[in-house]
């Protein structure tokens, strides 16, 4: 970078001194939070694609990675299928943060633990499949682990994003199915519907917890 030393008789330099000096500082980085695009392991475009997707809160399937690598050129994908799979296997071995999850239909998806938890990835994976199975799993997990019943309207919010009709219909359908016989409902005093699993919560307890979550906590700010 040039130094503008004061020199008698060098007006040209001095005229430039007052201008905004762009381009001088290409090496400067904006200091703004964390940059998660870089991660452990070799720099690899497939790895970057996975990490970017995780940053955005999304799983990315093998097919989507292939498409992204092919740059949207039709026909190029099929040729590279085997390449991509090998590449991904290698990456999984070399990069601590890259993980693979497999759906019931065998489809593989990938995420980076730098910005996504195992629990969230599992949730997204389940979200791709049968809504009933998703709801049941969440309800059972919450009933066991926290423990708490789950408000039905939670499934209308991110990352579930079902419509209310979808949720209500799914829940109604589950009532008839044997494999969901442990999933019960309870209504609070504001008529808000909660689901719980009888495997982990007794009805009276679930009902009390739902009322607490819906009304009691707000009455004890």
């Amino acid at each position, binding site marked *: 970078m040039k130094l503008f030393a004061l020199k008698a008789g060098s007006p040209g330099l001095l005229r430039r001194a007052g201008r905004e000096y762009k381009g001088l500082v290409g090496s400067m980085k904006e200091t*703004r*939070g*964390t940059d998660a695009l870089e991660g452990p392991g070799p720099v690899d475009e497939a790895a970057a694609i996975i990490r970017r997707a*995780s940053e955005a*809160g999304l799983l990315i399937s093998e097919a989507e990675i292939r498409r992204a690598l092919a740059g949207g050129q039709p026909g190029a994908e099929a040729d590279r299928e085997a390449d991509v799979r090998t590449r991904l296997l290698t990456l999984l071995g070399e990069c601590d943060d890259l993980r693979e999850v497999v759906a019931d239909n065998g489809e593989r998806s990938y995420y980076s633990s730098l*910005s*996504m*938890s*195992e*629990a*969230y990835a599992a*949730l997204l994976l389940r979200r791709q499949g049968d809504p009933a199975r998703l709801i049941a799993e969440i309800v059972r997990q919450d009933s066991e*682990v*926290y*423990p*708490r019943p789950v*408000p039905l309207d*939670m499934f209308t*919010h*991110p*990352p579930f994003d079902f419509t209310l009709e979808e949720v209500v219909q799914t829940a109604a359908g589950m009532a008839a199915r044997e494999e969901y016989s442990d999933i019960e409902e309870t209504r609070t005093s*504001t008529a808000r519907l909660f689901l719980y699993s009888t495997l982990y919560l*007794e009805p*009276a*307890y*679930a*009902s*009390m*917890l739902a009322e*607490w*979550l819906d009304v*009691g*906590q*707000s*009455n*004890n*700010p």
Partner: protein
Amino acid sequence: MKTYGGWAGKVLRVDLSTGRSRTEETVDKYKDYLGGTGIGYKVMWDEVPAGTKPHDPGNKIIFAVGPLAGTGAPCNGRIAITTLWPTCAPKPLVATGHMGGHFAAELKYAGYDAIVIEGKADHPVWLSVADGKVEVKDGRHLWGEGIRRTTAAISQIMGPEAVVAAIGPAGENLVPMSNVMNSISHSAGGAGSVMGSKNLKAIGVRGTGSVRIGGNKDEWEKLVKYHLSLLGANNQHVVPNAPQPWAEFWSPGTRWVGSKGRAWGAAAPPIETGTCEPHNLNRIAYRTNNAAFYLGDAAWQYTVRGNGCTGCPIRCHTMVKMPAVASKYGISEMGQNTCMGLLFGWVFFKSFPAGLDGRANMETCMVGMHLADDLGIWCNYGQLQRDFQKLYYEGHIKAKLGEKEFKSYSWDKYEKGDPSFLFELLPRIAAKEGELACALGLGTGYLLERWSISEAEWGKDHDLAYWKMGHPKHHSCEEVGQCGTLINLMYNRDPQCHSHVNFIRNGLPLQVQKKLAAEIWGAPEAVDAIGAYTPMHPSKARMAKWSVLRKELHDSLSLCNWMGPWVASPLKERGYRGDDSLESMLYSVATGDKLDRQELDRVAERIFVLHRALTIRDMGTKEMRARHDLIPEWAFEDESGKAPFTKGTTRMDRKDVETAKDMFYDELGWDRATGAPTAEAYRKAGMGDVAIELDRRNLLPG
């Protein structure tokens, strides 16, 4: 003489009877009590005799902070206010309140750790503290003004950086249910009328000085960043409100509401909060939005940004902009507050035309804030509003008011949930206009007395939240079983203690909480799932002791007990552990006085025990267990008849509660029969002189 960092060094004494002020050396006189409530209790013990009444000139009001106030320690922006409490029934006793905002920090920069207000001015005055220059100024032109105009007027004299703590007409008129406020939305309930009784309208502070860090500044920087790394959202909730990509857990009850797709909608242009990943310390302020937490998703579109105290990254106050209310009610479109301050107007009403989630909710909040935060009315943690509902719907108001007064209120508006009703009610409370206003303004204890309603009737009601001595519960057995119950026994108003509930509501699964609890309080039995309580256990007594000690410690150091302690964190790599030594580390580096966790907790215990001594002395009895540490009937009942220790009830068991008290008093080294500290307990706490004085009055057990 060793010099310490942290403390500003001077306690300011202002005698309003003479108009003169003087200073004392903080460290010489009060180091063993740290600051805040510690200094408050010490002054009350030494200088305000038993039998003094809140509005007597002999009462004192102590505004005090601790060595951490004004520093970069996260969450240090609160000032404690200690005095004889006007709403404490049947006999006023010593209690404390706090206010956040910028007053605490500014006081430190002005060079003071505390202001002790004594006596009574013979005409309205305001106190000006500009660095070393202290003046008692004529306040007659301010008397009668609301808090906002008072603040503007004093700011015009002292400059835009001045911080003004002012009372409104409620405090001036000696309404016990009044507060003092600074920085627009930060209130200390209960203290307003004490200032009013001294003719003190406001305190304006401007400080251009500094708070020195006693230890090494690089060490301080590391420590502050370490503390920041362990922060969750408001109330130290360490788990997000909904599933987030980075999180293993989530909990719909937490205040960590920032997420992708949610934005500060009234910012120009709107600002998305994003996923607020916990390692990103530059986005802590986006985690919490209490307007949205309390009022629902609709509040996001009205949110301008977060706000709050000096140095706190959490921003638990929400600044909202609602243009509709300006033309509809003739009030400002801008409002800001948190928690009960935000909900002040809303809690009065039983229902709203559009239901509980309607937009009317926000409008009512705006009207409530507009009125209450200018008139300076206190809610007593919502007891004012809950009492009002019960008194109205059960016919007490109609029975007690004359026909003329009853007709002067638009009850149809009230029943319809019309916020404009508040324009009729609140100004009258502040002005003591009429029987209803006077009664409500007394606080629950004296209201019941005035209207010949038995306290027992209030104590039976499950929805009223009444606890004892004129005040409500504050995070008691309904959520934290025996631990919450014990905490609520100890004070002379609602305890304002969040140590325990911050942990219980942090959103972590029960097993993780139990694991942490075992490390902190000795056994996983310390915490139960709510509604699945188990019998009393020594670890619960330890948790209760820890809770109150840390509350006093925070109130004396200047740390916010609505955020701390920080024994859990959002960091999976730490097993969600926080650090139980944060307070002692911050204290040690800030002051240069190295105390470890146990040593500092012993100082906290001294402060807590002094509060107990004050209560005993001023009640004139050592029978705390029988006469002070009381539990309302509703705590022992379940409306559907479930038995204690069954799943689905928070009902307490009488025998178990007595065991809880036994274990708790044991934990503190107090006498079981009376619940009073023994002479040995006082001596161990470094207060042998207190023991002697109480012995003289026959107030020592055994």
